[in-house]
Structure formats: C-alpha cells, structure tokens
C-alpha cells in the first residue's frame, strides 16, 4: 500500500470517526428558542414509529365480534347518553349513508387491526412536523401535529379522527384532539358526540406501547371516560393497510324517511345482557356509578324497578339544555372561512353567510342579521375587487335577510345597465316599486314565497328579493361554476331553498340544517316536519363523501360549523326519530301536554336543548306535534299550484 493510499485511508477513517462522534453526540439538543442554541429540535422522549399490533386482552368481544346490546357498564353515560344508546338499533348501519361510518379517534385506537406510525419532518430543518397514526380498520388516519399550530376555528369542519396536536411530556406523547364527528364509544350504539374532546397519552415500555384515552364529552358523559389500549411492536410491515368501503343498497324498498330506532322503553334487547350474565337490569345502565368500586354493593341491592326506570326518561324533570359550545363568534367581528375553492363562509352576524367570489363578482347566500353588514361587505371586498352581483336568500327569516338592503346597495349587477331589461325593468319598477334602479344594486334571488312572506311582514322594499322563482330549481353559471338553487317546500318555512355550488361541491343549506339547535319549524309560515325530513333527504341525495363518511360534499349550515353529509345525516336521523316518537304518542291519542311531558327529546337535549328564548325544545316538539296532528293542517303555503307535468 503506498503512503499516499495509507494517508488517504487515514483521512477517510478520521472523517468517518468525526462524523460518528457528531452523530452520537447530537442526541439531546437544547430546546428551540434557547439563546444561542442551534435550531435543532430536541429528540423526542419516545419513538413511536413502526408497526404495532393491538393486544386485545381487554374487552376482546367488544373489540372483535362486537359488544352486546345494552351493555354500557363502565361508561359514565348521563341520561342523554344512555337513552341515545337504548334508542339505537344496530340495523341503522344498513342505511346507505351510515354504511361507511368511520371510527372517532378514541375508538379508532381501540379497534382491532394493525397500526403504522411514522413521522413527518420538515425536509429543510428536520423538525418534527407531525406524527401520523394509520389504523388498518376504516383506514383511520390520525395526524398529530407537533409543530405548534393552533386548533381550527369552532366553525371549521369536523372529521372522525378530529384535529390533534401533540407534545412530549416526560416519557409520554400527550395529544389533544378536537373537531371530531359524532361516533361511537362502543359499537353497540354507546355514543360520543361531536362536542367531545380527547386527551391521549402514548407511552412506550420497550416493545409495549400503551395509549390512554380520556374522552371528555359534555353531551353524553357525566365525567371523562378513561380507557387504554395496548400494542405490541412488530418488526415487519403486515402489508394490508386498506379498508375499502362503498355504500350500496342493502335493504330495498324502504322509505327515505325510515331510520331504525327503538322508542323509549321499547328496546327489545334491553334485558338480554343482564339475563345472560345474571346481573341486575340496572347494572349496565347505571352510568357514572358503574365505574367505581362501591358499585358492586349498590348493584346487589338493586331492584327490577330500578332498572326499568332507566329504560326511559326520568319523568317530571325539566328538559336538559345544550352542553355544546357555541361555534358562533360573539366578538362583534366577521370571520371569513375558506370552505373550498372560491366558496367562503362568513360568520359573526346571525345566520351563516356563504360567498362565492371570482372574476365576475360575488354571489352571496344570505345576508345575516343586518347588524354587521358593513363589516360583511368589507370582508367580501377582500375576497374579490368586483361588486356583489347576486344575493340569494335561503329563507325569509330575519337572521338570513337582515342585511339584504344594505348589501344589495353595496353591490351592483353589471349585467343589467344598458340592457333591454334595464329599460323594461325601469318601467316595471315604477309600477311595482321593486325594480327601481336597475343594475345599481345587487340582484336578489329567492323563492317567490320569500318575497311574499317579506311583503306580508311589511319589510322595506329594498330588502325584498325581486328576482324570484316558483319551480323547484333556479340555476346560473357564475365565476366559472354551475350554481343551482333548489326549492324545498314546506320544510322550516314554505320558502326554503338550498344552493349548490357544483364545482366547489358546497351546499348551502340555510336553516334546514344547523349544528346548533333543533330545527326551527315555523308552522305559522308553512313549515312541517315531513317537509323538513324531505329536504334533509334531498340534501343527502346530492352529497358524496370522500372517504369513510369524511369530506366530499361540504355543507354550510344555517348556523354552526361547516359540515358534510355525516352531520346532515345525524340531524336527519334526529328529526325522524323525534317525529316517530311524537307520532307514536299521537297514535295513542296523546294530548300536546302529554307529549311535552314525555321528554321525547331527552337523548338530544344536551346537544340541542334550549328552555328559553326564540326557539325552545318545547316549541320544536309542539311544531312536530302540530304538523302531524291529523286535524291540524299546516298554514296554507303561499306557493301557487304546482306546475303541471307530463
């Protein structure tokens, strides 16, 4: 070996040695932000990456074949949660839109099926951006953001896995999750609401990973539910990571408004679990008490009537009120949320406002309560320099049309000045008082009944839509997109419409669907529960989910957070179930007072209930009752006779 070669090898060796020392030495690093510290993140306390298989040595039946009906022992369910679960008929999953329901984050971690965990790192500085957890079952993909980003706004969409942020604390990864959809704590209908938040702890002991979930659900739980899941590290990739789901026709010829459920006190399998295992009936229904050691003594003293009492709402109690956090800001400001493509939602002034903005101008759906219209106009002007050309109203209710006049005045329909219609309109305007300054304002569109109802309420002419329609569909091609407006007869009023932005695939539902309250069925103005169910089903016929009931067609509710078909579906289910309960009592000739006293909404009141104000739980129940009662027809719709079809 020549000297030169020896020296070269020595140099190479030293280089490798130097590099090795640096690699060994760089494990722990100062925290980011330390004065003078290199911008390298600290090493995580635990490494979760790799392949993990669940060790199902706890609740194997629940997690495998499926849990038994009416087995809610160990869940701190409140009355609403218990009744929701008892009302649940597992055949609900045969409904098209429920067939691909995914698992919410804590149940995903409990599912059988393997998990893969990997890190996402910034390619430029190797900072940890996110930890990804992929569950084989339902292709459950949890993204745990580690980069300090904030959680989304309260009006942002929910997903089954929710939005998670994490940080390392000691030997654990601590994860906080919000924005989940309604789902299951257990697959026998034990519910978790869309208001739940979860704290996860991931801790690793050798090749044993434990995940502890603490579910805080003010709607269905009396206290946080703590469970844990164990996983064994696997050295190789299992390979099978997909879980395709596409809905189909499982049971034919069922009416659209059929939702499998059990009436209160009529759950046919409520005793099956207790009888099979020789337990008191109340044992698995007792909620929070069933979690604690002293429960055994209480259960052994329980009587049959103690259990029977838990199968239906407690009588003589006031309706519960919503425990949900309001997603609507009250800071006196208008907040703009990009829904998809060029469709935005503006929140902060009554009902949600949708804006489609582009080169032609702005197409605005609803105008809010009218208290912050100037701010709304300013927000729209930040989306497009062009004027507001069209305003469409989904309803005549005040919180949807309050800003009509001011917003129309701030806009302009530049397609009209100089046109034939300008001359005709000007002439007509002198007669009708509706079209007075053609093109100088935005054009307001709505179903004819919106105009009629506003005129009937003596609303100012400037706030009344003049471009009205009578049939079931109005359409436009605007900003490069098909925009359709569909009439939904006799739903919450007799003038409701939805708007579908087809390219963005966003539906504006108006008050047919909200995430904040029971539907405001305005019987005096033509609203009916059956019409509302038809309308909700109509929306569901237009939606497509992207993946396992997440994403896809987005729905802007009249109030509340941006949704997709899953929220509409749960809302539809609720309306159908309450209708069926009222109808069942009506079939027994119950009076309105008896119906109200029966607390027929007890399983939904902690989500939607209100006992005072403009629209209460009792008003909703009464509206359902009034529109189902055979002797009472709803107020005559203002809609003219439908067009004859061949």
């Amino acid at each position, binding site marked *: 070996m020549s000297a*030169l070669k020896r*020296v*070269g090898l020595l*140099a190479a060796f*030293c280089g490798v*040695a*130097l590099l090795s*020392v640096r690699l*060994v*030495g760089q*494990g*722990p*690093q*100062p*925290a980011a932000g*330390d004065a003078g510290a290199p911008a390298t993140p*600290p090493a995580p*306390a*635990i490494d979760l990456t790799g392949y993990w298989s669940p*060790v*199902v*040595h*706890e*609740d*194997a*039946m629940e997690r495998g074949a499926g849990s038994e009906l009416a*087995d809610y*022992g*160990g*869940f701190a369910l409140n009355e609403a949660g218990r009744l929701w679960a008892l009302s649940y008929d597992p055949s609900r999953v045969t409904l098209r839109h429920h067939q691909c329901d995914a698992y919410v984050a804590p149940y995903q971690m409990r599912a059988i099926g393997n998990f893969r965990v990997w890190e996402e790192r910034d390619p430029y500085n190797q900072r940890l951006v996110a930890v990804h957890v992929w569950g084989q079952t339902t292709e459950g993909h949890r993204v745990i953001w580690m980069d300090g980003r904030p959680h989304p706004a309260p009006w942002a969409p929910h997903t089954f896995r929710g939005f998670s942020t994490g940080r390392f*604390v*000691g*030997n*654990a990864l*601590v994860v906080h999750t919000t924005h989940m959809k309604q789902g299951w704590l257990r697959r026998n209908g034990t519910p978790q609401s869309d208001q739940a938040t979860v*704290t996860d*702890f991931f*801790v690793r*002991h050798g090749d*044993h990973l*434990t995940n*502890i979930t603490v579910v805080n659900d003010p709607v269905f739980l009396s206290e*946080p539910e*703590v*469970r*844990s*899941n*164990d996983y064994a590290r696997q050295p190789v990739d299992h390979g099978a990571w997909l879980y395709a789901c596409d809905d189909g026709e499982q049971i034919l010829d069922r009416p659209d408004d059929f939702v499998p459920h059990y009436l209160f006190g009529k759950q046919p399998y409520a005793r099956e679990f207790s009888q099979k*295992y*020789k*337990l008191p009936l109340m*044992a*698995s229904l007792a909620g929070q008490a*069933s*979690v*604690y*050691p*002293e*429960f*055994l003594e209480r259960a052994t003293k329980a009587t049959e009537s103690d259990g029977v009492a838990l199968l239906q709402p407690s009588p003589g109690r006031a309706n519960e009120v919503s425990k949900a956090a309001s997603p609507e800001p009250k800071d006196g400001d208008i907040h703009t949320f990009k829904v998809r493509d060029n469709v935005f939602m503006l929140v902060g002034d009554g009902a949600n406002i949708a804006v489609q903005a582009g080169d032609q101008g702005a197409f605005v759906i609803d105008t809010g309560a009218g208290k912050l219209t100037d701010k709304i106009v300013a927000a729209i002007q930040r989306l497009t320099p062009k004027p507001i050309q069209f305003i469409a109203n989904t309803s005549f209710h005040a919180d949807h049309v309050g800003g009509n006049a001011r917003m129309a005045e701030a806009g302009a329909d530049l397609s009209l000045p100089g046109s034939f219609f300008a001359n005709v309109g000007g002439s007509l305007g002198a007669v009708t008082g509706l079209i007075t300054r053609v093109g100088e304002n935005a054009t307001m569109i709505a179903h004819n009944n919106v105009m009629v109802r506003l005129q009937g309420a003596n609303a100012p002419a400037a706030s009344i839509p003049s471009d009205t329609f009578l049939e079931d569909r109005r359409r436009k091609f605007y900003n490069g997109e098909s925009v359709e407006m569909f009439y939904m007869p006799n739903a919450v009023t007799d003038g409701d419409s939805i708007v579908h932005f087809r390219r963005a695939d966003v539906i504006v539902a108006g008050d047919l669907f909200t995430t904040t309250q029971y539907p405001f069925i305005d019987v005096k103005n033509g609203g009916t529960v059956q019409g509302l169910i038809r309308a909700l089903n109509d929306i569901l016929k237009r939606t497509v989910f992207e993946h396992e009931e997440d994403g896809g067609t987005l729905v802007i509710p009249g109030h509340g957070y941006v949704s997709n078909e899953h929220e509409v579906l749960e809302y539809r289910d609720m309306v159908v179930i309450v209708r069926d309960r009222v109808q069942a009592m009506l079939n027994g000739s119950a009076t309105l007072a008896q119906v109200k006293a029966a607390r027929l909404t007890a399983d939904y009141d902690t989500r939607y209930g209100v006992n005072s104000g403009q629209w209460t739980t009792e008003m909703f129940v009464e509206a359902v009752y009034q529109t189902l009662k055979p002797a009472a027809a709803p107020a005559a719709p203002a809609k003219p006779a439908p067009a004859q079809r061949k």
Partner: protein
Amino acid sequence: MFQRSRKSLTVLAAAALIVAAASGLAGQGRGAAPGGRGGAPPPPPPTGRAAARIDLTGYWVALVTEDWRHRMFTPPKGDYDSVPLNPAGRGRADMWDPAKDEAAGEQCRAYGAAGIMRMPTRLHITWQDDTTLKVETDAGSQTRTFTFGPSQGPGGDWQGVSVASWDYPQPPVPAQNFGRGRGGGLPPGGAMKVVTTSMRPGYVRKNGLPYSANAVLTEYFDRFDVPDGESLLVVVQELVDPENFASPYWTSSHFRRQPDATGWKPTPCSAR
C-alpha cells in the same frame, strides 16, 4: 507537489483526529461519572424515594371502564373472554370451586399481585421508607411492597417479591428542555418498573383463571396529569406464565387520584 499534497493530507488527518477526540470528550460530559479517574469516589446512588421524578403517593380509585363485567362482578366458571389461557390453564380454570377455596382458607386467590390491580379497589400508596413503596388496597385489604434495590424476603405469599426501579425516558431528555418555568431540576415523567416473582399461585380473575408460582409479573406505573387538573395512574402489566398462558398477558388498569381517603373501605377477601 506530490510531497506537498501528502503533507496536507497528513495534517488534515491529524486535525480530524484531534477534533474527533475533542468531540468525544465533549460528548461524554453528561453521563460520565463525576470526578473521573483519580478524583473523589462517586456518591452513592440516590434512594428510590430521592430518585423519584413522579409522585405516586396518595389515594387512588380504580376506574373500572374495561373488562367491566369480569372485574365488577364474578364471571361464571369457564368464562375466559380476553384472557390468553393455554389448554392447561383453561383446564385449571374449569375446576374453579369457590367453596373449596373458602374451605382451604384461600379466599384471597384473586387478590394476589397478578390480580389485585384489576379489582374494583382503591389504592393508598405511601413510602414505607426511603427504599420501599407500599401499596395498600381496600379490596381484600392487601399490601404490596416494592423495594428499590435487592429483593427482600422469601416470597411465597399472595403478593410475592417485588423489585422496583425507575424507568426514565430513553434517550435521556436534556434537563435544559424542561428547566424554564419549572424551576430547573429533573425532567418530569418516567415510570416505576416493578418485577414481581415468587407469588403464591392465584387467579387473574375471580372465576379461577390461574397463574402459577413461577409466574413473573412486570408492571409499569405511569402517572399522567390531564390538562384539566385530574391525575391518572395507569398500571401496565405483563404476566408471563407458560404453565397457564399461551402468551404474555397484557392489561392496563387506570386509577384516578383522590384528594383524601374518602371512600376508603377495607374489606376482606371474597372467593365469590
């Protein structure tokens, strides 16, 4: 020119060696024994109590949210749901006879180390001394002692012999990551690892699912502080017992911290 290049390479190699050596020395700062060769003798290792980075003491109540039917009530004979017993273990479980246990004075079979943490129970955890952590249960009125250091006693009773150690994050997290806002000191977190052997044969469930005298129980006690203020104790258990189990038996049990002894109600063992 050739000579010059060779010299340059030699200098480069030497420099690299020096830097490498320097880096190596610098890199072993943390973790190296203080004093080093020729210095003062290293101080004795801290006691288990002094080395604790998590506080497990206090009253804790079991949250029976999993295996609820099997834990809250006594399951029927032959119900092995979730438990990976092997055929021999199932055979022994099928012979469960609580009356026989009572007659033999063995009502506490389900309250041994491998079963007690799954019971609906409260825990009272205290330091018995600087090297011994004591865990008392009101269910069955049992006492477990975890010794930091060499194992103590011959075992052979329900709780066996338990050796404890602190299991801190690996790789070690530098203290400077945790110092700000915490007053410095050791980083939080970590677990207590407890290995228990020499147990008297008992049951992992009250319906006679057996473990043997040769079983080895490894436990990790983790404390988690939920942001809303409550504290949880999670006990992860791995029971290895080839005589009765087809695979290691893994469970994790949860306890919520209690402010005081409210609800503490010692009861005797029950075989039924």
